[in-house]
């Protein structure tokens, strides 16, 4: 029974990490109907920002999360302003999509040149503090991961539901042209979406850093799962993404316990195929226009 409970805790922690990564992906898809292949690299860059803030500048781990968030947001702004927005203005939806692949390759190779290929040991000071209770355990790092995920989800929800910008963002998501006729500037809101999504990715990188084997390709190891989560949750659906993220985290933990870690990808991607076949709209079926 203890093992079952412990794997439940492990699954929630892992799921929380996946949610942090997948939220940005789903936000961009919800507003732009665009897949951002560079998302994984922003996650990696967030992890490196946090690492160098700690080891290069002597900063603390918690402030390093804020640094990664800021770096991610700034990168999102830069990418959209310099590359994606001009391409979107040309009216071809395929161009920005292809550009995200180009940006991804460029970022990976830039990081390879800057940081080298050897894995970095990104240790959070909270990883060694273990809370043991009734036969179960959780590190302070994992408590922080859950807390940050819950806080992020709550803030995102509040932003979307109760602020003018959030409502405007949903309006753009539902119908960009009509939103424009109502006085909303869709370009500014698309920029805002990129900044929020990339900031979330950067922050996810800082949270994942101590979990991942940190190399310039670290983000790609979680992004495939994040894509699966976005599909299982329903493309662009925030609630569905949260639910799917937690579900995949739990599936991974219990699969490891009862079937072996070698079966994880088989189970997760079998679920993905089943969802595509049986419920292509995702876990929470809504009209795409109302997703964000």
């Amino acid at each position, binding site marked *: 029974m203890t*093992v079952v409970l412990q794997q439940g805790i492990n699954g929630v922690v892992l799921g929380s990490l996946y949610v942090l990564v997948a939220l940005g992906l789903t936000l961009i898809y919800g507003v732009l109907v665009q897949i951002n292949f560079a998302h994984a690299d922003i996650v990696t860059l967030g992890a490196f920002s946090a690492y160098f803030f700690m080891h290069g500048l002597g900063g603390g781990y918690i402030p390093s999360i804020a640094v990664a968030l800021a770096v991610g947001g700034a990168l999102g702004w830069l990418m959209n302003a310099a590359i994606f927005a001009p391409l979107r203005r040309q009216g071809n939806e395929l161009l920005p999509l292809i550009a995200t692949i180009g940006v991804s390759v460029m970022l990976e190779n830039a990081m390879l040149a800057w940081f080298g290929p050897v894995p970095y040991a990104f240790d959070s000071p909270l990883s060694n503090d273990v809370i043991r209770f009734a036969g179960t355990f959780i590190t302070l790092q994992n408590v922080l991961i859950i807390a940050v995920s819950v806080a992020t989800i709550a803030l995102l929800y509040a932003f979307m539901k109760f602020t003018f910008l959030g409502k405007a963002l949903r309006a753009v998501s539902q119908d960009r042209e009509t939103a424009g006729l109502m006085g909303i500037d869709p370009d500014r809101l698309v920029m805002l979406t990129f900044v929020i999504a990339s900031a979330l990715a950067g922050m996810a990188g800082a949270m994942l850093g101590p979990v991942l084997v940190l190399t310039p390709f670290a983000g790609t*190891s979680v992004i495939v799962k994040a894509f699966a989560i976005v599909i299982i949750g329903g493309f662009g659906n925030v609630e569905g993404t949260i639910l799917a993220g937690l579900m995949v985290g739990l599936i*991974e933990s219990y699969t490891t316990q009862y079937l072996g870690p070698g079966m994880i990808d088989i189970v997760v991607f079998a679920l993905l195929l089943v969802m595509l076949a049986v419920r292509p709209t995702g876990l929470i079926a809504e009209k795409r226009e109302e997703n964000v």
Partner: protein
Amino acid sequence: MTLRLRVRRLAAGMLTATAVAVIATPLHAEDKTIKVGALLPISGPGSYFGVQDKQGIELALELVNKAGVNGYKLEVKYEDSSCSPLPATQAAKRLLEQYKPDVVIGEECSDATLAIMPLMAEAKVPLLNAGSSSIKITEPGNPWTFRIMPNEVMQGVDIATNAYKRLNARTAVLLYENTNAGIGNAKVFNDTFTKLGGKILADIGFGRDVNDFTAIATRLAGLGPVDVIPTYTLEGQGLKITQALMQAGVTKGGDGHAIQLGTIWLPFGFEQKAGKAALGYIRIVQFDPTDQRPAVRDFIAAFKAKYNQDPTHLHPDAYDQITLIADVIKRGAKDPQSIRDGLAATRDFSGVTGSAEFDKTNQNVKMDTVHYMETLPDLSWKALGWN
């Protein structure tokens, strides 16, 4: 122009040409090179091998090329083979087609080495390996592939026997990456340990894409008391496993009972990266910096002089590959076929990592320096002197 003048000019021209030829001949002799292709993981999870191998190779080249060997200089061309079959195959093809090496060294990971072996055999270029442990590399035998390091059977039987007899271990859990080397090493431990009377409580393989090992550590913690945990992974995943086992209270670093056992795969410095989670970790290496053999002392002094740092046990593995090739050239080899024959005929070569002499499968059977290291509470290590 008179005939005499013409003859005089012709003679002067011939004299000049002869002089140039005379001067150029010794220069050409000094220019003779043996081309060494190096297939190393420069990127990806095994890149720490490539980075350290390159340092060892460059040091050996510097020393060997100072005076040359039989009028030859050694030249190395590096290609990134990424510890993975597909990039290794592509890198090997590039190397063979464009560089046309006389001999190739590498790869580190067994899967990659197994992938490039047929290409080397087809091109009739000898491959000298110092990092892959899978038994399939030398058995049933391949005339073009030679291995200096101990294979998985040599390592695994030794580790399992020492675990049972010296650590009095009776239960074990196997943790390994799902690669030829991971599966092979784990199987040898399993076979030897159970034959001695030990019990394997769980056999857990995982892919290289697994990042979070908490679930695996939890499963392991639920199995009851475990004496030893032989672990076969690259450094990155190894770190995460060691830390997860500590967090789950399984190993000594987490006030548990189990001792992790490791192989040659992990570099020195692993302990510092893993922190207190590495407490009690026992692993084998082929290089003991406290070894007093002159070859080891000289190597350490030269390494420190060149890089201003201490060598890890991966540096001398690569260093020995170059010095062994130089030894073969010294014995008269000059092209791929004669280098292959020279390697096969090697007797009593003495390197930093030990001796070399190949059996009929081209496996080195004269390694005499497999050391066991234990991590101490201050994260330093001590040699256990089990061999």
